[in-house]
């Protein structure tokens, strides 16, 4: 207990902000160009409940193939839809197919990763297993913000373009696609590149691997001034709750 108490004395200034580092746990990852295999997963409204089920222990003992979403940890992703009741892999599920086992780019439908936030359950592990790019019609609101933090690029394209990409992917098994954020282009050997647009702020953040905290830091004095003024204007917000 004594040791625990002394910790609290060592409270220091803002160095913690700079100490954030670039580790996968906390985000702030660079993304410029990514080359890899793509997998089509053109369902709409795929929820985080489907991507990372709460009861991932249900997958205990399932035979885990290696590499990408087929890696031993990756095998828990989509557990409720990728295995049969007896634990055997469903052949019709994309990541169980040889051609897509090591995919690092997912081509998805509308409102992908809607639902719970599951930052630690969805965005981070999938990034750690290697999924760096999602190309889709639209994305769940929370997923979009999370993705940036983990150096994961989300590209929004119209349905017709997505179908063209899927067509290319299905006829080019084993051929790598290149997603270039600097030039905002998706390059697929044998066809014209597809341009895309990104929010300039998000693009800058990914290209430079900026963490939110680095973006906030210059504004900390202003934040503190706002807070002090607010404490005068809305004192009730800061009341301790004992009626004072």
């Amino acid at each position: 207990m004594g040791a625990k108490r002394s910790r609290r004395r060592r409270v220091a200034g803002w160095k913690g902000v700079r100490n954030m580092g670039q580790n996968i746990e906390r985000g702030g990852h660079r993304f410029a160009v990514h080359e890899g295999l793509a997998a089509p997963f053109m369902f709409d409204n795929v929820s985080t409940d489907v991507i990372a089920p709460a009861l991932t222990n249900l997958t205990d003992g399932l035979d885990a193939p290696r590499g990408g979403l087929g890696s031993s940890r990756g095998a828990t992703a989509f557990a409720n839809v990728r295995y049969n009741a007896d634990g055997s892999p469903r052949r019709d599920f994309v990541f169980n197919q040889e051609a897509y086992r090591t995919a690092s780019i997912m081509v998805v439908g509308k409102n992908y990763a809607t639902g719970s936030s599951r930052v630690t359950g969805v965005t981070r592990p999938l990034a750690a297993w290697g999924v760096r790019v999602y190309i889709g019609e639209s994305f769940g609101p929370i997923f979009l913000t999370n993705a940036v933090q983990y150096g994961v690029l989300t590209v929004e394209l119209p349905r017709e373009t997505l179908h063209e990409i899927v067509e290319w992917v299905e006829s080019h098994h084993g051929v790598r696609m290149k997603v270039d954020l600097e030039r905002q282009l998706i390059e697929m050997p044998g066809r014209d590149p597809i341009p895309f647009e990104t929010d300039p702020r998000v693009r800058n953040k990914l290209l430079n691997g900026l963490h939110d905290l680095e973006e906030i830091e210059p504004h900390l004095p202003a934040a503190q001034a706002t807070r002090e003024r607010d404490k005068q204007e809305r004192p009730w917000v800061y009341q301790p709750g004992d009626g004072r």
Partner: protein
Amino acid sequence: MNRRDFIRTSVGAGLLVSAYPRSLFVRLRAQGGRGTLFDKIWDAHVVANLGGETDLLQVDRCIGGSPTQVMRLVEEGVELRNPEIFYSVPDHTVSTSPARYDDPALGWGWQPYEELADEMRELGFTKAFGQFDPRYGIMHVVGPETGLSQPGMVLCAGDSHTCTHGAMGLISWGGENSENILRTGTVIRRRPRTMRVNIVGTLGPGVCAKDVILRTIAQLGTDSGTGYAVEYAGPVVRALSQEARFSVCNLAVEMASPTGMVSPDDTTYEYLAGREFAPSARYWDQALAFWRTLPTDDDAVFDREETIDMTGVEPQVTWGINPEHAIGIGERIPDPDRAPANKRATYRQAIEYSRLTPGEPILGTPIDEVFIGSCVESRISDLRAAAAIVEGRRVASTITSAWVVPGSNAVKAQAEAEGLDRIFADAGFEWRESGCSKCYGSNGDYVEPGHRCISNSNRNYIGRQGRDTNTILASTITVAASAIAGSIADVRTFL
């Protein structure tokens, strides 16, 4: 003094509004915003513009800063700003079994909790509510119930159903990293567009707030709110009780809007008055005068307006695998072949997963399990309404599990004081401890594989309540009626 009386002492606050010279209020007006509740609150919280539509905002409340997280940051030597804006409740991870008070494996997992809580208090984090605390419960029940969520605030948390708090007349959203807020007290956010959903018409018998929002999502689509902050308005919403408004805002994220709101009014202020963290008598009039400036102006401009007419709408139930798959209790299960082309694939997947037969009536579909709880409807008024349905009746013998999980320890205590626990127990329900429970099985409470569960919660995605489980979403009273019938029931025949 009871709540209503307390408000009355301040109702002369109309005068106070005009006499209120606070600069915050002046700022709101001076910026010539577009007059919506959302714009007024957002503008008042901007610390800096970060380019384009992205702002740095001050955060007034954050559900986060768990003892483990706070202690880790303290260890790293980080200065933690504004500990008073945080509260934390481990609602997802604590079991709702009565054994949780004795079995460490079912509890918070930090032993001894009391010691950590003491350390937290010394650091200024006075609001960490473990399962032993009378204020423990689901975070979205606890916030409003203790008065921590107040009109005009910006409130963030990690959990996606943080939109629930918007019913108090504040901006809230989930998916936020509380570590950044612990370090800076601010958050980076891109300003969403605004949408108003006007709920008009009249609610028929047995039709309540949950039916309103399920109908809204069925009409507009589960992705309709992408990029928007939604305000629910109109005569139907105005007439709803404060607790019913939480039910509406809770499902905002199910239409892909992280923020749902209702303009505050006397219903809101009366609900708030006298609660532990509500403004004390010393500041009440000042706070009330400020809150009265917040509701959306008559001439406000929204980026999008939608209208949902509730006249003639029946109690709603879902048949599929996302919340927009809601139909009236008297309707038939849709045929994927007749669905709009862009929805056909999802409809097929839904029919395959739910093992329902297209063209059959949804009414009478057998169910295996029943769940009443969750941040949608687990407050005292919801439990009273459910108890009124089941009183003197018995849960059907074919139901393998029927749970009632109060939203908080306070709700549980109140319900027991009113004898509701006896009514549920006599009817054959299991009366549990408070928490998230079977809505999302991360605390070990889940639906058995292969079972169909009718639930008053908010998500029916594949595997949400457990592997191979099929969730039917409905209002609390429809769930209660279905428990008695043993199949999806029309609550109107139970009234």
